[in-house]
């Protein structure tokens, strides 16, 4: 009976739940799904992580390669994120060149890296003007059940914390790089940006961490990226229904709370990995 009603009138079905301040999966309006993270499981990558936000699963693999630094910034390296949304994760995507959602997500991650200064690009430089590290960050979605941006940001952060780069010396005589694979060091992660996404329903209600169904029914979305000092790296609201300043303030406070939750989870994970 309920399943029939849900198919015919999905929005009304949802509204019934929202009136009672809860959602069909039993969560409250401000509650996130169970978040799990697994770090360092890909042996072939220099750094990796797997993040699950309820059913949404994103895996991040980071490979470090050599490259020439850009001519306008000879003391900087590169970080190149790429989000891959394939037909594997959802029926909505087709195989072929990256679709719009994947491109927008990649741009979003690039903006977060740039704005939050998670890594100083100068740290990636080996020899100014000649050699620098290029970090290719591949974020592959294995299951798309909504809120892809939060999962990708978290996966990227965890993977970057897991990256170990070998020591590189430039031999003066041959001008070649000598890589010492035995001596590896972690990256210097300066800030921990955490994304919190909201969906706007009927122009008034804000729910946190939308599932894919909720994203379809929503009239707008909002993503806030905060770092530990409560500063905002990114306020991404791509159109949709309007929000007042007061509502934005509520979102901000929820985002700050979420940041603490995520930071705690990450600290636990990395602490348990310490004896390596």
């Amino acid at each position, binding site marked *: 009976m309920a399943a029939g009603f849900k198919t015919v009138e999905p929005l009304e079905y949802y509204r019934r739940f929202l009136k009672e301040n809860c959602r069909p999966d039993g969560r409250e309006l401000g509650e996130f799904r169970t978040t799990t993270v697994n770090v360092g499981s890909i042996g072939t990558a220099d750094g990796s992580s797997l993040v699950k936000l309820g059913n949404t699963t994103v895996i991040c693999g980071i490979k470090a390669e050599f490259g020439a630094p850009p001519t306008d910034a000879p003391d900087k390296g590169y970080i190149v994120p790429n989000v891959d949304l394939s037909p594997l994760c959802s029926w909505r995507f087709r195989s072929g060149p990256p679709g719009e959602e994947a491109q927008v997500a990649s741009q979003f991650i690039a903006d977060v890296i*740039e704005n939050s200064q998670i890594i100083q690009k100068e740290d990636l430089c080996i020899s100014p003007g000649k050699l620098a590290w290029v970090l290719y960050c591949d974020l592959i979605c294995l299951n798309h059940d909504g809120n892809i941006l939060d999962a990708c940001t978290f996966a990227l952060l965890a993977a970057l914390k897991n990256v170990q780069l070998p020591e590189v010396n430039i031999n003066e005589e041959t001008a070649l790089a000598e890589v010492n694979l035995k001596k590896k060091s972690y990256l210097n992660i300066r800030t921990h940006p955490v994304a919190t996404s909201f969906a706007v329903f009927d122009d008034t209600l804000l729910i946190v961490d939308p599932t894919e169904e909720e994203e379809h029914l929503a009239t707008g979305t909002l993503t806030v990226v905060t770092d530990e000092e409560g500063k905002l790296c990114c306020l991404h609201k791509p159109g949709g229904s309007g929000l*007042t*300043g007061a509502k934005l303030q509520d979102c901000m406070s929820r985002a700050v709370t979420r940041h603490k939750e995520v930071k705690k989870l990450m600290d636990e994970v990395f602490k348990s990995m310490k004896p390596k």
Partner: protein
Amino acid sequence: MEESMQIETKVRAESGTESGPRGASCTLRHFACEQNLLSRPDGSASFLQGVAEKSRERLIRNTCEAVVLGALHPRTSITVVLQVISDAGSLLACCLNAACMALVDAGVPMRALFCGVTCALDSDGTLMLDPTAKQEKEARAVLTFALDSVERKLLMSTTKGLYSDTELQQCLAAAQAASQHVFRFYRESLQRRYSKS
């Protein structure tokens, strides 16, 4: 069947209406719009390459989708083509203004008008509205907002750089105040246009 009318409009600021304390011009760029109407615009105008442009296209498209009354015109398509003639900073805000004026010009039914306002924060926290390209480059943070005309609610926002919560509220308030200038400019230029014909 489908009627396709190409409307091109150039709107230039003649009087001193501006959207910032600098007294910068509100020059709207040349825009063209094909008059086919659809409840959901048929994808973005794919005349631009690059991922950054795709992202910008999506922002403009989603903002238009939020205000256009698509239900009144089913099975029709609206294509908004924005051609940048010159970029002197605050590009996205300018594109939004142009898109709104084009939709009005085309007679597309909308629930509100919208305008784009850019705010830049420099290293000591000074707020600058409608920054030039140089100011944008040197700024610590650049925030672009799209606000609607009915209640000045925030329709779209995209930001670059780091800033605090209070700074965000300040920028939003300043943008809301500035949007009044832009909406007044819309009204005046439309009045001027229709009073002649």
